[in-house]
């Protein structure tokens, strides 16, 4: 089933961390396995990289913490080796970290080099994007990663009921559009031509971190954006390129978009208000941040909409 939500403030930053938590928590019944956020803070000069060095399902054997510490030092040394000036690397949970650094080069070799460290996955990379995802409901994830204080302009989130792959962080949404900076995707549905697209994209040199079908949407869009296509055009081509049922949300540094398959098989409720646009699988999620009566509607089949902050 899964629940997805998105919010964009068009009149300056808001408490997107707390707002997204309220939206996702109200849809807990749609997916209790894991919760994930893609949050956009104030854009900075520095690149922010969210990464994890182990999975919560992993057993903590005798040198678990030493191994993590070694891997963390390895990340720092690899960042310096590729010419990045590290600002700081901080632990966000037992196995997830946030690094900020100055770097001018290409992102793909950097991400590939870092992910070459055993157990490491780069969750997000960008000047304002930060992806946080973990097992448990939205409240649990928000509390352990202190997302209540996060201020920003827009965000998307996802509560997952695992159907196509394992319950772990690699299978949790949102997906960063590797290796494209500041783009992330959440998806509700199933893609039936996943294996074709995965083979096609792997041949083009893209890596996949999970067995989850939703990951190809992020990489698919990233490839088209890298080819110079606009976000809206890339999303429109995805409607015929992707088979199956889907409603997905995509965020970039300054915009938020939605796309729905040609049968409108998966739900999405949209509210366009003064200074903000909110979308979610259920109206109750929007009402978690806007308690008053609102006007809302379901976008139709094959619809692609994009808003900018």
């Amino acid at each position, binding site marked *: 089933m899964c629940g997805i939500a998105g919010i964009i403030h068009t009149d300056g930053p808001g408490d997107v961390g707390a707002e997204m938590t309220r939206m996702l928590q109200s849809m807990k019944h749609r997916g*209790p396995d894991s919760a994930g956020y893609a949050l956009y803070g104030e854009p900075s000069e520095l690149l922010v990289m969210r990464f994890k060095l182990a999975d919560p399902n992993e057993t903590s054997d005798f040198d678990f913490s030493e191994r993590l510490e070694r891997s963390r030092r390895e990340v720092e040394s690899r960042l310096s080796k590729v010419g990045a000036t590290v600002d700081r690397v901080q632990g966000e949970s037992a196995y997830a970290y946030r690094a900020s650094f100055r770097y001018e080069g290409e992102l793909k070799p950097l991400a590939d080099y870092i992910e070459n460290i055993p157990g490491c996955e780069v969750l997000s990379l960008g000047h304002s994007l930060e992806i946080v995802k973990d097992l448990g409901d939205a409240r649990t994830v928000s509390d352990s990663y202190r997302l209540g204080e996060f201020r920003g302009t827009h965000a998307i989130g996802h509560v997952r009921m695992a159907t196509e792959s394992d319950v772990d962080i690699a299978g949790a949404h949102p997906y960063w559009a590797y290796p494209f900076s500041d783009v992330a995707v959440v998806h509700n549905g199933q893609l039936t031509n996943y294996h074709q697209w995965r083979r096609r994209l792997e041949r083009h040199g893209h890596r996949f971190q999970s067995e989850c079908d939703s990951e190809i949407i992020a990489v698919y869009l990233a490839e088209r954006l890298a080819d110079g296509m606009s976000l809206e055009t890339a999303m429109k081509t995805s409607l015929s390129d992707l088979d199956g049922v889907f409603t997905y949300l995509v965020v970039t540094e300054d915009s938020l978009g939605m796309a729905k398959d040609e049968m409108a098989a998966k*739900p999405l409720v949209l509210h366009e208000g003064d200074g903000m646009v909110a979308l979610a699988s259920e*109206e109750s999620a929007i009402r978690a941040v806007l308690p008053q*009566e609102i006007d809302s509607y*379901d976008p139709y089949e094959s619809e692609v909409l994009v808003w900018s902050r």
Partner: protein
Amino acid sequence: MVAMSTRRSRNDIRGLAEPDVEAPKTARIEGDTAVFDAADLSPRQINLELRRLVYGEQIPEVTIENPGAKHSVAVGILTRCRITIDGSVGYFGATLGDGPEIHITGRVGWSVAENMMSGVTVIDKNAGSLTGAAMRGGDLVIRGHVGARTGIDQKGGTIIVGGNAGALTGFMMQRGRQIICGDAGPGMGDSMYDGAIYVGGAVASLGVDCVEAEMTPEDDELIDRKFRIYGMDRPASFRKFVCGKKLWNYDNLEPSERKLVL
């Protein structure tokens, strides 16, 4: 504001159902009418309070305030009564009803009035997908737009849509009628068995075995009567769509059945 229910309900192990919850008894009752605030009630508490009022107290007119887009509100009411829901409800609102007249002043989510047996449900704003799914009787009126698969598997009754309808409207409908004032999306009437769909606007495309039929004076009379009841503006003309009966294979036996007969 009505006083909150003091007793918190116990949830099951999944944190969803509330097996031993009781009606909060917070309604203000004045003669034949009752009003209660649903802002702090769970869907189950709302429905228990509603049942207490219409069955226990025999009150014919109940208003629910602040429904807050909650799911499954006013489900399975099997008696004649008038219910006003002042705001928006989520999925499965006003479903499985037999008799009530339900007026929702806001928007509804998916599957509103699913399996309604009789009665009237009127929605002032938009509706999600699967509106009136498997409906068997009564009138379902949506003054705004509806999503996809309106009246899927409809077996009776009338669905009236003031605005546009999405993809696969009337998918597999078996009886009853739909009156769509605006445009209808692609695949309209796909695999319909019987019944009629009247469309005032444009049809994006027809589904498998759905064909246009001629409007009769009886059709126009029926539409006029329905629009008069609900005070709606009637589009100048309607087109009528019915089943082409090309997929009717009721006389043909399955190979295994044929062996039994012969």
